[in-house]
């Protein structure tokens, strides 16, 4: 039996109330399998980012459940969420969101040390990870000295440093050219295969469709499989 890394049932997120109520996510149920790359596409405002927030424990659903590692994120105390995110999730952002005052290696060290890895070990692991992603010559560069593709690879290294069960990527190729976009999407696929991490990507970018194992379409807060 294949066990889902993450399971969501009946997830609904409503903003506002009364006449101004917006049902951003409407009764979505979804399972993310280990080692699988899932791509959610859909028009702007369709609710895909809100769904990603809810699945990643960044937004509490109005209704429904999100199960990860025995925890229901929808019911978990607010103060316990960061620890669950740290232990189970990795995030890759459209704008990279690297910490500007830290070098590439230090950016990758942060989640490791937050997870309790000793600084020397974290430094060594961060260096190895960045070298594996082709950034061996950029370890001590500040983000402002890196290209877009290099920044995104650092952010991927940061996201996977703690070997997360689920990697969430929000428009990971939006700020990259076509070639780099495919390289980054390919990295996600390799990671999923090599480590069993589930990858959930939210994107408009049709060029990366062929890297996904499963394609889903989000429209008006509802999710359906794409042909």
């Amino acid at each position, binding site marked *: 039996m294949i066990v889902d890394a993450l399971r969501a049932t009946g997830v609904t997120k409503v903003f506002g109330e009364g006449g101004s109520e917006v049902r951003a996510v409407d009764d979505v149920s979804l399972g993310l399998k280990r080692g699988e790359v899932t791509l959610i596409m859909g028009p702007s405002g369709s609710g895909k980012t809100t769904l990603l927030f809810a699945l990643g424990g960044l937004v509490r659903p109005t209704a429904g459940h999100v199960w990860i590692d025995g925890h229901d994120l929808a019911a978990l105390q607010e103060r316990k969420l960061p620890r669950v*995110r740290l232990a189970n999730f990795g995030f890759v952002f459209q704008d990279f969101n690297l910490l500007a005052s830290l070098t590439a290696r230090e950016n990758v060290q942060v989640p490791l040390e*937050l997870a309790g890895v000793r600084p020397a070990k974290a430094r060594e692991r961060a260096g190895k990870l960045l070298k594996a992603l082709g950034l061996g010559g950029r370890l001590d560069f500040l983000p402002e000295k890196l290209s877009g593709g290099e920044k995104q690879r650092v952010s991927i290294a940061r996201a996977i440093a703690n070997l997360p069960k689920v990697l969430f990527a929000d428009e990971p190729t939006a700020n990259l050219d076509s070639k780099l976009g495919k390289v980054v999407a390919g990295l996600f696929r390799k990671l999923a295969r090599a480590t069993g991490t589930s990858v959930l990507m939210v994107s408009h970018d049709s060029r990366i469709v062929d890297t996904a194992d499963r394609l889903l379409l989000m429209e008006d807060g509802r999710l359906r499989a794409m042909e």
Partner: protein
Amino acid sequence: MRGADPVVSIASRNLFHDRTRLAVSAGGVGFAIMLVLILAATYDGVYRQAGLFVENSGADLFVGQAGVVDTLHSFSILPLNLSEEIATIPGVERVCAIISRTVEAHVGDSEHPRTILVGYNATHGTAGPWRIVEGSRLPGAGEIVIDQVLARKDGLGLGSEVRIGSKAFRVSGISADSNMFIMQYAFVRFEDIVGLVLPPGSATYFLVKVAPGADADVVRQAIEDRWAGVDAFTVAEMAANNREVISGSFLPILLVLYVIGFVIGIVVIGLTVYTATMERAREYGVLKAIGAGNARLARVVLTQAVALAVLGFLAGLAITAAAAAIIGAAVPEMTLYFAPTAFPQVFAAALGMSAVATALPLGRLARIDPASIFRRG
């Protein structure tokens, strides 16, 4: 970041990122620290000085008119012949009558309306100047020993003339530690001011020296029991009473100024840390998203605030040293005394400033939504 908490490293790097702002902020905190230190030193200086005359009098008991509890603000007048009667009390070795009045001292065209003139019997070994920096400790007939602050203010030296009322005195000695902020002590022979500042046949206090082996408290009680019109105090009590006068006069004003200094420090630290937090709000959102809890992030803000308080304290020490030198040259009557305990206390106050100052940025930090770092789609 080697060996350090990464979140704390982020704090220090954020703080040192804009060095100009850091320098301005540390300077601002430093000025607040300087204000508090100078105020404390002024208070401690006056407080300390207030008891020195009594403590260096060489007496064991101060006897004054009933109801008079200090030598600074109260006015005592007693019949001079009481001195001989007090001398008959068992346990009394010696009694020295003194005249101590606040008078106007005239030097050339200037006048010093708050000079504490002490007339004493130089042969008794009590009540005279206790630290001489120039000239003689014991004034002769028609001579006066003045404080060095008075001398500096008016360019006086040995041989200069000082007039008290209708009488002129020649400066024969210059004393130190006899400055009382806006007042300075001056010492003359008792007989030189009889009839000048008090009616003849009167004195302000009797300084009693207790015989070896006698109990000062017993002697005091005997004096008070015998004469209803007098009160007697030990030297320690009278010095404490004088200092109490200073506390009562100065402390309320100083407390207001302390609070102002403290508030300035809080505002400077608070604004600096708040600005640094807001500039990095997005990064804090990233840290929250990847798993740093509010408590962990609060350490960033606290680290910044404490670092700023420490830098501000160090800057404050440097500014205080410069200010003290300038004050000493420009306003010699302002006696600054930096009590060793003042520095750890002010340092603790600086840390307290930083703790209070973090309230606003901590509140803002707690409200940063990690989801806000994502693009809306």
